[in-house]
């Protein structure tokens, strides 16, 4: 809750409200400032949850008064969206229907001198009721009749649907193994009962859990390579504290609507706002500097900036020596870090070294992976050099030249003059100089880098170079500065196993069990190993070793039928074909790939895989026909649902309890109440999967299904799944309140919160930022709900090592693949031409008008656009290709051909064609979207594993796909099926 004062506001009854108004009048008479009292009165008027139904209908004005009336106000949010915002909403219930929603706006400022978070929301959240009651809503169970995708459905009872699905799942598990059942976690999840139910059901089934974080292009590989984790940053109000805000590959005015105001308010507070974007974006229009960079050349700009920071003496040497790998020694002969194994026989290959100028020799780097004795980063009494050239005696008696990473880096930066960067980026050298100068002079530089910054083939290099600029300035982990790539706050779960709470056998992802983590941590610490090894081994114990986890990109490469396409598109980009890297990674067990042999069932939890994947035509051709069962559990009728066998209607967002996922931008837990019963026959996911578990148990018992070997990671007994799912009757199908409460009880960040209190307030501030062991990591041990939430103080203030091989922010990656590819250090490599050498670069942007495909087909939203998907072209390009604004374009390359209407915009860089994503394929002619021309390159280096931070972890390190390198031809072209009157 926001503050004690506000709490009283929510609980005001009418009598007290009137009394307060009287107090206000008295205060006015006495000439006291009234603002605060007015605020209380307003809060009371609309936020006490009581009915407001004007009885009188005497005048025409009363008709309007009636429209602003309600029976009840519930608190809710849009908890199942993959939206990086969370916003408390009042849900106005009238006659059993949620008629409209409006922001509650009950957040407080984090600390004095920082603006508050009110009134978080956006146009989509303000009309979810349109979607919930709209034409895309599923409300009864449906079974396909006739051809898959043929559009013919039969309404069936729930009992029949669940029984048939259960029998098929059991038969498939027996015949082809439990891992042939795939659950794509997808973007449709909360941190509450829905995800707990899905995770628990499929975990107990031994099904393949497919992680698509990187596959959808959201994983910040550059941050993982540098920091050891991808999700960096605290509250969005920290933006306000920066004096040099660099929005670099992000468009908060469109994709972070509730938070964007902090940028413009920071400007008013004296900060300089820089937007680096080829697009003159809705954020750029408010910038002090707009840097119209050529797409895909951001690393070049960053390298020139880093060089300037170094040259101009703006480098923060004490920070760089302690927090980065710049002093770590590298062997000149091999390019690899100098390790303990180099210096003596039997030495530790994971121990790396810095140079001790006093002793004249290498000493172990504190905090590195192989240095358990010096667990913290303090250098103690000496300053290791970051430049120089030294000689060491190796174990075999030979001498080897070694240099600190800093020397290699300085040499790498040498050629990145403003002029060279200008040539590569298409910018004027003067503009680069202005930007770099501002960066170097800034006291608190900050870079905002969205998940969308990871969609170029070489995005990792770009982000490594961007972070380098910050780290040279000592900015990461300091208040009001650093890197914001969206942090997460750890929340609880209920585990996958037999018991709740601390005895849970397996916790995973959102179901991480902190108590078990702690126990394991103690054991590991007694074994005197480094913090990062502890974290990785824990991750193994918790997930990799027990569940059938796969990354979606590897799964697609194995089964989707795209391997040939990608080998062709990526020919010559790396020393070997993509499939060779994939093969090596599998042989060495670097990347787990499930299912092991075949895919037989696909059960989504609302994700829209045929909308989302690149080259869906390959999925439909190669993967779909082999699937014996496709089930979509979803409130929405999606394109994937169109091609499914069963559609199970999930409750809408205002019809079930949930917890919005915990992104750190807004450090409040957001609770979603069940304001009204589910529409039609729809049900919440907890109930659906509870009942499905009972049906699977029944079917397995009837068939006498033997105990299966799961995916080789432990036995799966489907004859017990119903009992285990319900914790042997502890939770029934209707017990979402108890499940939610258990989840709240299971994490330090939410301990003490109650569902009952959240029903009143909708939000409550987190009690902490989560421990460093969990998958969601902020690395702030001290934040307990007070003050601006910031990240990474665990390293910069408490001096614990970063979870990387060197224990530091690591700019040098000495993995053989990286050395071979010339990517040991951040560098610039040109964006490849995926799809062929065509004149337009096709670039995907997140949309203002939808969160993925939710709202995409909603009439209210479509009427505020053009009603159909658009391809954005600069008017000059539009004239060049002879397609007037609003007319049809044929968009093609060597993988496909699709049709879109053209929209002119001067924000578009000539040579670029933008689309704002997540249109359903059924919104395009032939039901084929831009995804039909998007190969989705996979960077082979991201298949590397088992070395330092290059280690498969769910949502931390795994291969993904990159769509921004796509090239297309654009010509006038008219789809079939148009009436003659309908345009060109």
């Amino acid at each position, binding site marked *: 809750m926001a503050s004690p004062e506000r709490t009283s506001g929510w609980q005001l009854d009418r009598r007290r409200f009137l009394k307060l108004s009287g107090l206000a009048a008295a205060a006015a008479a006495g000439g006291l400032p009234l603002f605060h009292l007015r605020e209380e009165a307003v809060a009371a008027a609309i936020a006490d949850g009581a009915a407001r139904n004007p009885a009188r209908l005497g005048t025409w004005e009363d008709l309007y008064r009636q429209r602003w009336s309600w029976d009840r106000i519930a608190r809710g949010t849009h908890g199942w969206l993959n939206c990086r915002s969370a916003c408390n909403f009042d849900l106005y219930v009238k006659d059993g229907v949620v008629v409209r929603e409006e922001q509650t706006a009950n957040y407080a400022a984090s600390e004095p001198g920082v603006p508050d978070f009110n009134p978080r929301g956006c*146009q989509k959240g303000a009309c979810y009721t349109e979607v919930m009651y709209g034409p895309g809503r599923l409300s009864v169970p449906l079974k396909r009749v006739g051809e898959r995708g043929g559009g013919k459905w039969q309404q069936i009872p729930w009992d029949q649907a669940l029984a048939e699905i259960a029998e098929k799942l059991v038969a498939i598990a027996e015949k082809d193994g439990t891992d042939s059942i795939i659950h794509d976690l997808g973007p449709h999840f909360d941190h509450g009962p829905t995800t707990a139910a899905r995770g628990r059901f499929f975990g107990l089934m031994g099904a393949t859990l497919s992680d698509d974080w990187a596959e959808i292009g959201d994983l910040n590989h550059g941050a993982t390579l540098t920091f050891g984790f991808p999700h960096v940053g605290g509250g969005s109000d920290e933006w306000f504290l920066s004096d040099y805000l660099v929005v670099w590959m992000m468009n908060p005015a469109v994709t972070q609507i509730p938070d964007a105001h902090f940028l413009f308010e920071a400007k008013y507070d004296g900060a300089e706002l820089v937007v680096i974007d080829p697009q003159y974006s809705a954020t750029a229009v*408010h910038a002090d500097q707009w840097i119209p960079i050529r797409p895909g050349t951001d690393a070049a700009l960053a390298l020139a900036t880093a060089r300037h920071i170094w040259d101009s003496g703006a480098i923060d040497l004490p920070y760089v020596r302690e927090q980065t790998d710049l002093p770590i020694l590298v062997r000149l002969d091999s390019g690899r870090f100098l390790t303990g194994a180099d210096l003596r026989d039997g030495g530790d290959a994971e121990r790396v070294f810095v140079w001790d100028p006093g002793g004249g020799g290498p000493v172990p780097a504190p905090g590195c992976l192989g240095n358990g004795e010096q667990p913290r980063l303090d250098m103690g009494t000496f300053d290791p050099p970051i430049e120089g050239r030294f000689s060491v005696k190796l174990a075999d008696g030979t001498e080897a030249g070694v240099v600190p990473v800093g020397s290699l880096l300085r040499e790498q930066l040498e050629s990145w003059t403003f002029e060279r960067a200008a040539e590569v980026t298409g910018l004027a050298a003067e503009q680069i100089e202005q930007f770099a100068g501002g960066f170097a002079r800034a006291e608190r530089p900050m870079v905002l880098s969205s998940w969308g910054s990871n969609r170029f083939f070489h995005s990792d290099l770009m982000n490594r170079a961007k972070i380098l600029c910050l780290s040279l300035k000592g900015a990461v982990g300091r208040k009001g500065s650093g890197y914001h790539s969206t942090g997460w706050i750890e929340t609880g779960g209920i585990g996958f196993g037999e018991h709740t709470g601390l005895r849970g056998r397996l916790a995973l992802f959102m179901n991480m069990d902190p108590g078990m983590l702690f126990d394991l941590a103690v054991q590991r610490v007694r074994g005197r190993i480094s913090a990062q090894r502890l974290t990785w081994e824990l991750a193994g114990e918790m997930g990799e070793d027990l569940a059938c986890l796969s990354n979606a990109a590897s799964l697609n490469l194995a089964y989707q039928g795209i391997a040939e396409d990608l080998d062709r598109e990526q020919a010559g980009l790396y020393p070997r074909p993509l499939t060779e890297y994939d093969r090596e990674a599998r042989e060495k067990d670097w990347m787990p790939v499930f299912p092991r042999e075949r895919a037989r069932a696909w059960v989504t939890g609302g994700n829209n895989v045929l909308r989302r994947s690149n080259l869906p035509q390959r999925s439909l051709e190669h993967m779909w026909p082999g699937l014996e069962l496709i089930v979509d559990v979803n409130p929405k009728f999606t394109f994937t649902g169109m091609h499914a066998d069963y559609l199970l209607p999930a409750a809408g967002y205002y019809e079930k309890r949930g917890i919005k996922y915990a992104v750190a931008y807004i450090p409040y837990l957001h609770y979603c109440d069940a304001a009204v019963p589910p529409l039609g026959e729809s049900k919440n996911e907890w109930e659906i999967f509870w009942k499905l578990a009972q049906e699977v148990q029944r079917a397995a018992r009837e068939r006498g299904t033997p105990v299966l070997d799961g995916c080789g990671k432990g036995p799966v007994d489907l004859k017990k799944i119903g009992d285990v799912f319900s914790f042997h009757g502890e939770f029934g199908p209707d017990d979402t309140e108890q499940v939610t409460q258990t989840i709240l009880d299971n994490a330090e960040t939410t301990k003490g919160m109650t569902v009952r209190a959240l029903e009143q307030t909708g939000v409550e501030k987190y009690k902490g930022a989560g421990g460093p062991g969990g998958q969601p990591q902020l690395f702030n041990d001290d934040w307990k709900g007070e003050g601006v939430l910031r990240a990474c103080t665990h390293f910069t203030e408490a001096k614990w090592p970063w979870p990387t091989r060197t224990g530091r922010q690591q700019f040098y990656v000495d993995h053989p693949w990286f050395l071979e590819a010339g990517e040991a250090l951040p560098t610039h490599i040109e964006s490849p031409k995926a799809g062929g050498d065509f004149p337009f670069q096709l670039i995907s942007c997140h949309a203002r008008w939808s969160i993925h495909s939710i709202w995409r087909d909603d009439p209210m939203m479509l009427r505020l656009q053009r009603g159909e998907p658009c391809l954005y072209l600069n008017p000059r390009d539009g004239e060049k290709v002879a397609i007037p604004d609003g007319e049809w374009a044929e968009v093609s390359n060597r993988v496909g051909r699709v049709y879109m209407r053209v929209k002119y915009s001067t924000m578009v860089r000539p040579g670029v064609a933008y689309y704002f994503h997540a249109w359903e394929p059924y919104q395009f002619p032939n039901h084929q979207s831009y995804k039909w021309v998007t190969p989705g390159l996979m960077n082979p280096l991201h298949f590397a594993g088992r070395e330092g931070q290059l280690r498969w972890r769910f949502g931390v390190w795994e291969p993904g796909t990159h769509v921004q390198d796509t090239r297309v031809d654009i010509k006038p072209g008219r789809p079939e099926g148009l009436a003659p009157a309908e345009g060109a």
Partner: protein
Amino acid sequence: MAAEATTTRQIAMVLDLNKCIGCQTCTVACKKLWNTDTGSGYAYWNNVETLPGAGYPRNWTGSGGRTATGEVKTGKVPNLDDEYGRAWSFNHEEVRARSGEGASKPWLRPDKPPRWGANWDEDRGAGDYPAENHYFYLPRLCNHCTHPACLDACPRHAIEKRGEDGIVLVDQDRCHGYRFCVEACPYKKVYFDPQRQVTTKCIFCLPRLEEGVAPACARQCPGRLRFVGYLDDEDGPIWKLVHGFGVALPLHPEFGLGPNVYYVPPTGPPRLDEKGRPTGQPRIPTSYLVELFGERVHEALGTLERERAKRRRGEASELMDLLIAYDWNRSFALDSGTREVL
């Protein structure tokens, strides 16, 4: 003008265009609350348009208003398809049912090819990339003018300017749907409801105001750019921004209606020269802002820049504090409890 004589206080709104991100939450908030009926499907009492652009309704400027001597000018009623944009219907059911029909299958789209819409021009802007391309967002609602042309144009005397707060309302009982008000309003902020055969317009969220709650467009604005209060409240944000600092200006003051919605004019990154070097010149031509907000825009932009420079030097600025809106609830200075609650 009778209205002027009897208006004792004037409610007003200030919109800071330097914080508007074009998210249209205001548009949707207004639409959901007031205009979900069939006859008002096309109507947006609040809309946000991208400028430079033709806006909504298309090319709305310059039709109606007053002559130099104060006479109401006859304008035109915009066309539903070509200038407003009809509330298109969509074929969801057909798309699902006929999804198996090969190349001829229908796809989801408006029932008729759209010719215009409330946000048709979104993000289009003007000027050559990258030297001088520019755009900004302009949210628009009824200006609740001091000298409303709609009021004078109505032969039924169905339009009232309320004495207690200056809100301009169309009496839904008296209105006969003649549409003279639609013609007369130079901002084209009065809408004809063909279903009910009356005209409707922004009511400044009258029922909410009666409870001391700010209008939905303002209270739901996540950009935190709207301020609401009384023009004569010298302690409130409106007076300070409009009169105190003079940074909030009415739209098209030359129309002569005395609008009571004010805008803090937009600034942007500088223009680049032909070699891509930043210049000191504004990207949005100041002459264009003068067309919209009048000559006072020069002074307003100067004040904004001076006050921001103070903050860059670490000095205090009441104006910057006000525009930052640290405590967002203070953006609304309204009377509460003019009607008994509940």
